[in-house]
C-alpha cells in the first residue's frame, strides 16, 4: 500500500482492480527479488508507454527508501528514459517537417494556378470583399458535401448494394416459395465523422475567426455529429446556437452569448476547461478534434502542455489549423505553438479557401 501511495505521489493513477492483480502476482514471484517485483508492478499497474518512466522512477525511490540493500541499477536495460525522450523529439521533428512540406507545396501552387476561382481560393480570408465572401461560401458548401458522404466498412441492407445479404434472404425465404427467391443486397453504411472544433476568437484571430465559424457552420449542417466550442479566455460550447438556419442570425447569437470575443488568449486554460467539463460529453474514441488558433498564448506554457497531453490521449486525431502558417517565412516560434507541435498530429494552414479544401481532404483521410 505504501508503494501504491508512492506511485500516486509521482502522478500515476492506479486502478483498484489492477492493484488486486498486482497483489495476486506477488504470490507467484519472489518479492525480495528487485527484478521480479519491478516487472510485476510494471506489467500490472502501468498501461501506457509514457507512464513507464514515471513508474521506474517511483519504483527506484520506493525501493531505495526501504531497508533492503539495492542492487546496482543495471536492471533498466531497456533504458526507458532515453527511449521516450527520443520518441518525442523525433515526433517534434517530423511535425516540423510536415510544416515545411506544407509551406513548400503552398508556394508551388501559388506560382502556377490561375482563374478567378483559383485566385479566390488563395486570397487571404481576412481580406475578402462581400461579393467574394458569397462565392467563397458556395464553394465551402460543395466542399463540405463531399466530406459528408463517406462510406464506412460496416454493411446495411440496401437494394443498390453489390453484396448479397444472405441473412435477409434466408429470412424472406420462409415467406415466399424458394423458386421465386429475390436476391437482396447490402452495402456499406454511411459513416459520418464525429468532429469537435474548438475555435480561437481572441483579438489576434479576428480577421479569420468569423470565416472559420462559417466553415464550421457549413460543416455543422451536413454532419450532425459536430460539436463546436469557441474560446479566448474561457471555453464556450456553441453547438446549440449554430442550429439556427440563418448564418448571420446564428453568428449574432454567438456574439451575444460569448463574452470574450476579441479579447486575449489563454489556450491552455481553455483546453483544460474543455477536458474537464465538455470532453466527457462530446469526445468518443473516434472523434477528430480540430483546434483553430494562431497559437498566441498569454497563459502558462506548462498548463497548455498538460491540457494538450490529456486531450491527445482521449481523441482519435488532433489537428491544429493555423492561419499564420500561410504567411511566407512563418516559423512556429511562439511558445504556444512549439509546445503544441509535440502533441498534435498535424498543423495545417487555414488562411484561405484552398487551405480549407486541404483541411477537408485531410479530415477525410484521417477518418479512414
Amino acid at each position: 500500500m505504501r508503494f501504491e501511495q508512492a506511485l500516486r505521489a509521482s502522478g500515476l493513477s492506479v486502478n483498484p482492480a489492477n492493484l488486486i492483480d498486482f497483489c495476486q502476482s506477488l504470490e507467484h514471484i519472489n518479492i525480495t527479488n528487485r527484478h521480479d517485483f519491478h516487472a510485476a508492478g510494471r506489467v500490472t499497474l502501468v498501461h501506457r508507454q509514457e507512464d513507464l518512466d514515471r513508474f521506474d522512477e517511483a519504483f527506484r525511490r520506493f525501493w531505495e527508501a526501504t531497508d533492503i540493500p539495492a542492487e546496482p541499477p543495471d536492471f533498466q536495460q531497456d533504458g526507458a528514459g532515453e527511449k521516450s525522450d527520443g520518441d518525442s523529439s523525433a515526433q517534434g521533428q517530423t511535425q516540423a517537417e510536415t510544416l515545411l512540406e506544407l509551406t513548400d507545396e503552398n508556394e508551388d501552387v501559388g506560382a502556377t494556378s490561375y482563374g478567378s476561382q483559383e485566385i479566390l481560393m488563395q486570397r487571404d480570408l481576412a481580406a475578402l470583399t462581400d461579393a467574394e465572401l458569397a462565392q467563397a461560401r458556395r464553394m465551402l458548401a460543395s466542399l463540405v458535401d463531399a466530406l459528408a458522404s463517406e462510406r464506412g466498412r460496416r454493411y446495411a441492407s440496401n437494394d443498390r448494394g453489390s453484396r448479397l445479404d444472405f441473412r435477409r434472404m434466408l429470412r424472406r425465404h420462409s415467406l415466399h416459395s424458394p423458386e421465386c427467391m429475390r436476391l437482396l443486397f447490402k452495402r456499406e453504411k454511411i459513416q459520418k465523422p464525429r468532429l469537435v472544433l474548438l475555435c480561437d476568437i481572441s483579438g489576434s484571430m479576428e480577421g479569420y475567426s468569423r470565416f472559420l465559424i462559417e466553415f464550421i457552420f457549413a460543416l455543422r449542417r451536413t454532419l450532425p455529429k459536430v460539436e463546436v466550442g469557441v474560446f479566448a479566455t474561457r471555453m464556450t460550447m456553441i453547438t446549440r446556437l449554430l442550429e439556427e438556419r440563418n448564418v448571420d442570425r446564428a453568428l449574432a447569437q454567438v456574439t451575444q452569448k460569448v463574452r470574450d470575443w476579441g479579447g486575449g488568449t489563454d489556450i491552455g486554460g481553455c483546453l483544460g476547461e474543455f477536458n474537464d467539463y465538455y470532453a466527457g460529453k462530446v469526445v468518443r474514441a473516434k472523434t477528430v478534434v480540430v483546434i483553430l488558433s494562431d497559437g498566441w498564448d498569454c497563459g502558462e506554457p506548462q498548463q497548455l502542455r498538460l491540457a494538450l497531453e490529456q486531450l491527445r490521449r482521449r481523441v482519435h486525431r488532433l489537428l491544429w489549423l493555423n492561419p499564420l502558417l500561410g504567411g511566407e517565412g512563418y516559423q512556429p516560434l511562439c511558445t504556444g505553438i512549439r509546445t503544441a507541435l509535440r502533441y498534435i498530429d498535424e498543423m495545417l494552414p487555414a488562411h484561405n479557401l484552398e487551405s480549407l479544401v486541404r483541411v477537408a481532404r485531410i479530415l477525410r483521410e484521417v477518418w479512414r
Partner: protein
Amino acid sequence: MFSDTDEVVARFAQAGYIADHQLAALTFLSVRLGKPMLLEGEPGVGKTEVAKVLAKILGTELIRMQCYEGLDTHHALYEWNYLRQMIEVRLEEARGVAKEEIGRNIFSTEFLLKRPLLQAIQSEGELPPVLLIDEVDRSDEEFEAFLLEVLSDFQITIPELGTIKATRKPFVVLTSNRTRELHDALKRRCLYHWINYPKFEKELAIVRAKVPGIDESLARQICYFVERLRELDFYKRAGVAETLDWAQALLFLGVAELDATIVDSTMGCILKSKDDLEKFKTLDLAKLVADAKQQKP
C-alpha cells in the same frame, strides 16, 4: 508450465526468441494469472512473434485473429453457413421432412462456421490454445467493446444453440502498433508491456539466433549500422524484422563485410518508403560504413 521468470527466458531462447526480463515476467504472470497480455511497440519489434513462440513452447495450438476496421462478430465469432442451409432446406423439403424438423436441422453445429474466438473457446487440446489478437488498434470501437465482453467471461451465446462456455481460458496475446490509443477498460483487463527497439547486444543476439551461419563481425557491423540509422530521423524506422531481412540478404549475397556499394544496393531491406530512401542518399555513406567497421560510438 513455467516455474519462474528465468525459466521463461531460457525456454524462449531455446525457441529462438531473445526475451528480456520484463517480457519474461509478463509472460510468466500472464500464464499464471490467466490474464491477457497486451504488447505495444513500433512495427517489427517482435510482438506477434511472442504469441507464436509461446504456442510453440507450450506445444499448443495458435489461433490467430487479424483485426481490421469493420471486423464484426460474424468474422470474429461465428456465422451461419447460409448457402449450405439453403441447399439443405431444399433437399429436406424434397424429401418431405416436416417443417419444424427442418428448422431444427439447419441450426445445428454442422452449419456453423467457427471463427477464431469461438474456436479458441471450444478448443479441446491438452492445453488451452494461444489466442493471438493481432493489431487490435486497427479494429473499431464497436469491436473493442465486444472483445472486452468476450475476454472477461470467455463465453459466447448463440441464440439458436445456447451459451458456449470455455472450460479453460485460452492464453490471450493482444498486439497493438498504437496507431490509436486503446480504450482504458480494455487495457485494465490486460497486463501491459511496451516492446522497445533492442539495444545493440540484444539485437546482435537476435541476429545470431535467427540468421545462423552469419559471420560474427558482419553481424556486429549490421547491428551497429542499423542502430545508427534508427537514431536518424526517418519516417519509418527499421524494426528488428528489417535487420533480420537485411542480414539474410547479405548472407545470401556472400558479403564478408559492409561497403558503401553493397549497403546502397541493399537498403531496400531496411528503408521502405521513397522519402526515406531519398533522405538516405543524402547521408555520408562512406563515413557510416567506416564507423560501423570500427564500431565507433
